[in-house]
């Protein structure tokens, strides 16, 4: 599977520059109002922009919830760059930028349509003696795009394009392009969020959904039908998932996703839709004399089932990056080490980026996995990781305070407002 290794974003809400190297599990650790959610939203926005149609892209370029109103960032373009590997041999860098739409009334000079300004795709063979990037697509001034048409050519062929179009999408129609597979792979990078913040009742509430033209009333929302399908199609993974849940919640003995469609109502042939299938998740707890519905269990139990099921689903769907806000939400600190280890096992090639307020999670992470929110005099989002050269020193300081690296950084983070000289000493530059 292709992998996502690094993301850089500029010019989104209060993000001046946000850059993150992705390990299998990476965290954004910060106090409230330091921009964790904005960073997550920016990542989703950046990838959705690539996938969407021109009409939606136009709307996105004018989305007031995303345009920066920070004094130092307002007016700057949105800049997105992803680095990754397409296969075992090929690395890529793909990026684009656009100007946000401006529509201040009474000031015509300030009015402008959103438009894509730059775009580039570079690839390299990482196994060659001197791996060097070759530019395949280059857009430097709005509607002027150059690309390489053939393996022996140069990046000089013009590609006519609109200001709301991405060359990546246009070139994906060129089936005989020698790097068509690369274009398709980059276009299809999948980033998905898992909702851990909603009321867990919502995760299990009945919901009417349409799949393949059929309406289904789902008890257990999308969890129950997915688990039912998983049990039918991949029993090994289903059993492993149940094993993981029952490790974390030992009182649970069995978990059974079931279809409960007992209405058997007669309908005419010309009825507009079929009767809905209904699913639920039935659970047996050790001390109970009968099975019950999973949604009658605790908030934490429901959230654990939701989280791990979605991790499994993401891995099976070939998702490159999973985004989870406040992973520790409703979960007992004693379970967090196991939870991280179980998630790691289920992730496979999928990577996880999560936000957290918890030193109990941070203490299990190593330096490259910890991005710390730093205070900014300008109100910018500022996440950085430890300088590689400082890791052993900080580990030593942490040990002196009887802490792990993550616990120490969590503690330090809360004091950095007063100890700003430590920021440049310990942390990487953005």
């Amino acid at each position: 599977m292709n992998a996502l290794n690094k993301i850089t974003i500029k010019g989104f809400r209060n993000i001046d520059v946000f850059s993150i190297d992705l390990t299998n599990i990476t965290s954004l650790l910060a106090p409230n109002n330091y921009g964790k959610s904005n960073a997550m939203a920016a990542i989703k926005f950046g990838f959705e922009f690539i996938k969407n149609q021109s009409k939606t892209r136009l709307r996105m370029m004018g989305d007031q919830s995303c345009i920066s109103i920070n004094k130092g960032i307002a007016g700057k373009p949105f800049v997105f760059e992803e680095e990754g590997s397409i296969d075992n041999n090929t690395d890529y860098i793909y990026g684009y930028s656009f100007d946000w739409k401006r529509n201040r009334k009474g000031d015509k000079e300030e009015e402008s349509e959103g438009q894509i300004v730059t775009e580039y795709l570079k690839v390299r063979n990482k196994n060659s003696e001197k791996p060097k990037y070759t530019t395949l697509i280059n857009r430097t001034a709005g509607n002027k795009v150059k690309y390489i048409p053939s393996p022996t050519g140069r990046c000089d062929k013009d590609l006519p394009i609109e200001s709301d179009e991405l060359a990546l999408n246009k070139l994906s129609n060129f089936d005989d392009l020698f790097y068509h597979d690369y274009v398709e792979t980059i276009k299809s990078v999948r980033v998905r969020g898992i909702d851990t913040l909603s009321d867990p009742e919502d995760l299990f509430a009945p919901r009417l959904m349409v799949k393949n033209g059929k309406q289904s009333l789902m008890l257990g929302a999308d969890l129950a039908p997915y688990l039912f399908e998983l049990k039918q199609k991949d029993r090994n993974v289903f059993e492993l998932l149940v094993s993981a849940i029952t490790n974390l919640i030992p009182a649970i003995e069995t978990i059974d996703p079931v279809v409960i469609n007992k209405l058997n109502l007669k309908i005419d042939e010309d009825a507009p839709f079929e009767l809905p299938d209904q699913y639920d998740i039935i659970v047996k707890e050790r001390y109970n004399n009968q099975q019950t519905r999973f949604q009658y269990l605790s908030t934490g139990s429901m959230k654990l089932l939701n989280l791990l099921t979605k991790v499994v689903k993401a891995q099976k769907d070939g998702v490159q990056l999973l985004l989870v806000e406040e992973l520790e939400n409703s979960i007992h600190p004693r379970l967090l080490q196991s939870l991280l280890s179980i998630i790691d096992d289920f992730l496979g090639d999928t990577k996880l980026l999560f936000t957290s307020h918890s030193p109990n999670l941070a203490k299990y992470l190593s330096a490259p996995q910890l991005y710390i929110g730093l205070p900014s005099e300008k109100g910018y989002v500022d996440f950085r990781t430890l300088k590689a050269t400082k890791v052993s020193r900080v580990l030593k300081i942490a040990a002196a305070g009887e802490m792990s690296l993550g616990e120490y950084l969590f503690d330090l983070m809360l004091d950095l407002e007063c100890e700003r000289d430590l920021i440049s000493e310990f942390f990487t530059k953005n």
Partner: protein
Amino acid sequence: MTKKKATINSDHIKVIFVEGDADEIIIDKLISYYRSNGFKKQIKIINTHGFPDEKKMRQGLTKIIMCSKNPVEFEAVVCEYDTDIFAKGIQQEPNWKKVEKNLKQNNNVTRFCRIQAKTSIEDWMLDDLEGLLKALDLPLNTKPKGQYGQDKVKALFRRKNIMYDRHKGREKIKQYLDKLDIAKIREARKKELKEFEGVLGISIN
């Protein structure tokens, strides 16, 4: 006849701190093995659910003191841990001499030693691979996949659709680990157990 003057009896306690469920199961088996070979003293195993650093050991010892009716003397305190935690860059290896000195000075500890499971307790389990394969009902020619002991054991359990959880999997993994031949493991880990057995006064040929 004169009555003997009553003396206050101290509790002489031996404690082993272990870092997770898997470690607890193996160390417990090891103690049972010693018992079957004549070792009679009581040993308390405390699972710290994470690396047993000095802070966790101090807290554990304090709890014992608080719960005891008599004054407590810690005849021996043993710290068991997997060495891989230091390689991962999550935690720095403590200054063990300092830890020992502090525990002896402040916590009434007479002897202190460590059991270093290299690189993790799962590597010990693999010393009886045949036993583990039998316990899991896997073919005896199964070659565990993975780079490290932990990966290999996880992969073996996964073949039976069991999530091997070394931190909190006691109920799931105990039935399998109980079937391991601890004598075989002890024989393979003699060097790592030498100091520990010396402290407990165990002598098995």
